[in-house]
């Protein structure tokens, strides 16, 4: 069984001179200084693309390639936004109100339904399919029906916002609760930890990163849903403004409303990202530095 052995030996080598000093000089711990420059590089390219894009657009419009009512120049759109800022603001307020009412309702609904489905295995089989089905309802087609039932006011818009917000949050909450580290739960259970203790100390924090990814998706949907609901019939709101402007061939106002809607969506998304950084700072960090 013993393998044939040629003369084996170990030869030890001395460390090169100055090694001790080398070890003391450490690599910078965090890459923040590098990060700023890298951040500029990352932000710089999209910015450049944007500038070129608007320049080409401006040129195409001003050169008479297309008439103003087809393609207004960015400068005209900006001008209109400024000139009629009072009107834009009134309409934006309506849309924002719809989102600000609908989003929290959708959030709470998503957390509660997701929480129940995530915690109760039998619900995952019975109730989850219905939740998924609710999302397969074509939102666009639902809007006129809601207007028919609830009128031209805020209610149908809020309902639609709730409908698009609650789903990603439900799914994310379920995913979060299901992915809780089982071994931490076992550790707790053997020490006699109760259901509530495990829920608060392990399940909730473990699922928060998932919930936030759902929140970010929901935030970007909310503005879209409000505008679509307004298309189906509204007295005010950015969607209503867009429709009216379109009918009157005030195309620069259509673009103006579009820009504001986009800004609201991006703003909500940014707000959620900020909250994510504040509330679950370990998550991003963990993914960046983690080697697992």
């Amino acid at each position: 069984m013993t393998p044939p052995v040629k003369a084996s030996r170990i030869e030890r080598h001395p460390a090169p001179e100055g090694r001790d000093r080398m070890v003391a000089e450490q690599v910078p711990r965090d890459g923040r200084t590098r990060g700023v420059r890298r951040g500029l590089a990352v932000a710089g390219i999209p910015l450049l693309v944007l500038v070129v894009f608007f320049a080409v657009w401006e040129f195409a419009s001003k050169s008479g390639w297309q008439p103003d009512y087809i393609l207004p120049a960015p400068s005209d759109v900006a001008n209109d936004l400024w000139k009629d800022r009072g009107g834009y603001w009134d309409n934006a307020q309506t849309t924002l109100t719809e989102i600000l009412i609908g989003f929290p309702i959708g959030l709470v609904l998503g957390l509660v339904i997701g929480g129940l489905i995530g915690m109760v295995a039998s619900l995952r089989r019975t109730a989850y399919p219905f939740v998924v089905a609710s999302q397969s309802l074509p939102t666009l087609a639902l809007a006129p029906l809601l207007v028919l039932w609830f009128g031209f006011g805020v209610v149908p818009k809020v309902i639609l916002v709730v409908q698009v917000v609650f789903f990603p949050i439900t799914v994310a909450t379920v995913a979060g609760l299901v992915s809780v580290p089982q071994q931490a739960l076992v550790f707790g259970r053997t020490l006699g930890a109760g259901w509530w203790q495990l829920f608060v100390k392990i399940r909730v924090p473990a699922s928060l990163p998932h919930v936030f990814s759902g929140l970010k998706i929901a935030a970007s949907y909310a503005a879209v849903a409000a505008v679509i609901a307004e298309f189906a019939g509204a007295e005010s709101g950015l969607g209503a403004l867009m429709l009216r402007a379109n009918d009157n061939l005030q195309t620069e106002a259509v673009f103006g409303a579009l820009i504001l809607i986009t800004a609201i969506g991006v703003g909500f998304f940014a707000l959620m990202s900020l909250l994510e950084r504040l509330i679950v700072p370990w998550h991003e960090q963990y993914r960046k530095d983690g080697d697992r």
Partner: protein
Amino acid sequence: MSRSSDRFETLALKGVGHQFRAGGELVPTIAGVDLEVGRSEFVTVVGPSGCGKSTLFNLAAGLLRPTAGQVKVNGEPLEGTNPYVAYMFQQAALLEWRDVLGNVVLGQEFLGMPKGEARAAAMEGLAEFGLSGFERRRAWELSGGMRQRVALLRTYLTQRELLLLDEPFGALDALTRLQMQQFLLDRWQRDQRTVIFITHDVDEALLLGDRVIVLAPRPTYVLATVEVGFERPRNAEEVLRAPEFTELKTQMLEMLVVDSESEVEPDGSANGSGPGRPAEAERSARQDAGSGE
């Protein structure tokens, strides 16, 4: 909870069998295990991967009920969870939203210990485990060995007398593992709490245990019991060098390979026959990790 005594004396598995239902089919995991572990014993458990080692732990902890036989603690049948048990796993299972100190006090929190008291004990423990200065670090900033030390400390700080260590060093590199083994030997020496230690590594089983329980493949039973006579306190290097160690190891490997009807050679393909797989140990480690509940 059994309230027979405040002090852990014995854990006894008497003819314990277990099977679970998977899609209408009964899957037997444990055919029958008789095992008794007394206070201050250090027992290691080896067996092929997926043989039901972790199930055995869950039975001992009272998280699972045996479908045959009995689990007795201090001579009385175990009802509910075993009040003497604290767990530790292969993956440190550290909470990423807590720093090292927060992770270390988790067990004490579950036990309802006052915050100040828990903290004081934790700071002392951190010093003892060589983790001073790392209180505010997060798990992902630590090396694998340090993470396992945090998890071990967390388990130790529960003051539970029966420690169930489920392949705690299984995911570590060889050198770190050796350091941790020596660390555990030294730490055990101080208060000699009862340890049951699962591993798939025969070296580790012999180095650490007073007694090695060798398990058969699933559905499992106790294939052999090895009394390990190395004097304590043990020094890892000395033990690993001892001729008796090599002798015991050879016998155990033969037993595990032949009697478990595994087609895997223990040391790759020593004689060129049979499908030797040197990567087996690593792979089985990962499989165990997957099946660990």
